[in-house]
């Protein structure tokens, strides 16, 4: 999909925040994922043109980081942590339950749901934990994980809200989350207003360099 004038403007604003344009490659790759759902050759070419490097250089960056997806990962990407603390608290059983309930083996995706194992996601005090479109659920169980998959399949939520997920499917947390927030994720990329990848508050770009 070609980028709208508004998205191009946002991209230029992001580039302007950095002393050197190339630093904007990673934020722009998130923006490209927002455009197409994953990183397409066209999307990476667009990023290359915006920061003045070659598409091959952009691809070399994109393929280094696990959160940049060069293939479709469905509308909801479930990243189940299997690192040490989650492993100790039964993460492998939870991952298998997610694979079984969704019919999607780890590392693969259908049109709706992608499943992957993740290395430590920083939720060790609330292990086992997973991310759905990078929003966190702590204190998962096998049963709750199956419910999560059914909820995604049947409910097809437009957006993912971390607090809602935690309330519905989570239990013990790493610390008191305390404050609810209404930002919501809409795809397999983190919701961050400044990059234009949040479902809400996308106008919250703060003043640019020298503004």
């Amino acid at each position, binding site marked *: 999909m070609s980028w709208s004038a508004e998205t191009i403007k946002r991209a230029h604003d992001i580039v302007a925040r950095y002393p050197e344009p*190339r630093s904007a490659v990673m934020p722009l790759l998130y923006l490209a994922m927002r455009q197409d759902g994953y990183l397409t050759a066209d999307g990476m070419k667009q990023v290359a043109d915006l920061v003045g490097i070659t598409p091959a250089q952009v691809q070399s960056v994109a393929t280094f980081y696990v959160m940049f997806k060069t293939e479709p990962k469905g509308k909801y990407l479930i990243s189940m942590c299997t690192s040490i603390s989650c492993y100790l608290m039964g993460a492998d059983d939870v991952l298998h339950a997610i694979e079984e309930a969704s019919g999607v083996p780890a590392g693969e995706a259908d049109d709706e749901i992608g499943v992957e194992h993740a290395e*430590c996601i920083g939720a060790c005090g609330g292990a086992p934990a997973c991310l759905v479109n990078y929003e966190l659920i702590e204190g998962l169980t096998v049963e709750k994980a199956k419910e999560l998959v059914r909820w995604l399949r049947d409910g097809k939520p437009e957006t993912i809200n971390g607090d809602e997920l935690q309330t519905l499917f989570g239990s013990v947390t790493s610390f008191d989350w305390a404050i609810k*927030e209404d930002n919501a994720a809409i795809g397999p990329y*983190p919701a961050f207003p400044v990059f234009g990848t949040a479902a809400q508050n996308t106008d*919250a770009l703060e003043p640019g360099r020298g503004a």
Partner: protein
Amino acid sequence: MVYPLVVTKRMMEHPADSHTMKRYEATGGYVAARQSVGQTREELVELVKASGLLGRGGAAFSAGLKWSFLAPARPAYLVVNGDESEPGTFKDRQLMERDPHQIVEGMIIAAKANEVHDSFVYIRGEYPKPARRLQQAVADAYAKGYLGKGIFGTDYDLELTVHLGAGAYICGEETALLNSLEGRRGEPRIKPPYFPAAKGLYMKPTIVNNIETISNLPHIINQGSEWFAGLSDSADTGTFMMSISGHVNKPGNYELPHGLTWREVIYDVAGGIRNGNELKAWVPGGASAPWFVPELHLDRPVTKEACAADGSMLGSGAIIVMDHTTDMVGAAERLVAFFAEESCGQCTPCREGTTWLDMILQRVLNGAGRDADIDLLLDVADNISVGLGWPPKQTTICPLGPSAVSPVMSLVRHFRDEVEAHIASAPHSGGQGVAVSIRGIA
């Protein structure tokens, strides 16, 4: 037991709104930053040196001394490392989510101390919520004139940009982080010549500080270096945050004084072992730290000095506790698998060695172990870190490869019988076991 709190005090006393500008300013916020912009580099560096504050990212180097090493060329940059990705560590996540203004204020102080006008926070991509909170705090600070042109009505300018990573543990290594922030693959640079203080971001002098280190700065400015040093009896001053996870009753982040014993931390602070189970072993300072066992270490003090004397480290302050039901070969495999997956691939001993260590551990776990596998593990490990000593020697650009050796050495040192039992239970333990990959690492 109630311990004095510094960086978590506000969020404990005001859980509902500790992240807001209103609460932050109502509890003494931005007084320190306002004062600092009127102070000289020398004054601020000396103050932080005198406080004894050590970097909280794992290396525990004097923060003030690090600042004093910054090369004089300008522009220079301040980069704050919020890439926290060490298995077991989740303290910076809480600091970013629950008290983001403390970080913004700390960054203003660090920037002024180093005569920097451009600063960045690099937050791991898996932390969008902490990033959003910090971004909101940054926007609020710009709106108040605490960031941007002429901050606090002075002629001092400071830009602050929140930058999101994209899932790479190695970007917690400071030179890899700088490459990543430049829009490159997150591969560590060779030191020398690429010491950030001389050749950092865009090859310019750069200070890289950890989130917890930065969070302490406003308190040191407000209450003085003597107060901060006085919080501790050891050379390691102030308080420190521990992330406790695994088989304990009360996992979580705890801000603690230095010098408790491991028994106090595991049984009093973290509520003891789940289901009344027996403690088997714990990782004292992040996935790279050699394990401790109750017979040898339970009554040893939780200090950097004591950990070093016992052949391990406090590192990032992540304790991972394992009870008697734990399969130690499984635990070691999971730790090694992490490093195998997160190796950036530049150096052969790390790229190949960590993968082989993991495949050998997997086949032992899967009932295909061979009699020679313990020796083979040690041989591969020795090729990554020659001599298998502590602190580990490096054959690689950064310490990631040698980090994978720690769990293997801990396993063989303390639980060799468990490895042997796994191998003995294999149907053809003397024969040709097959390396089986369970998570696609091969």
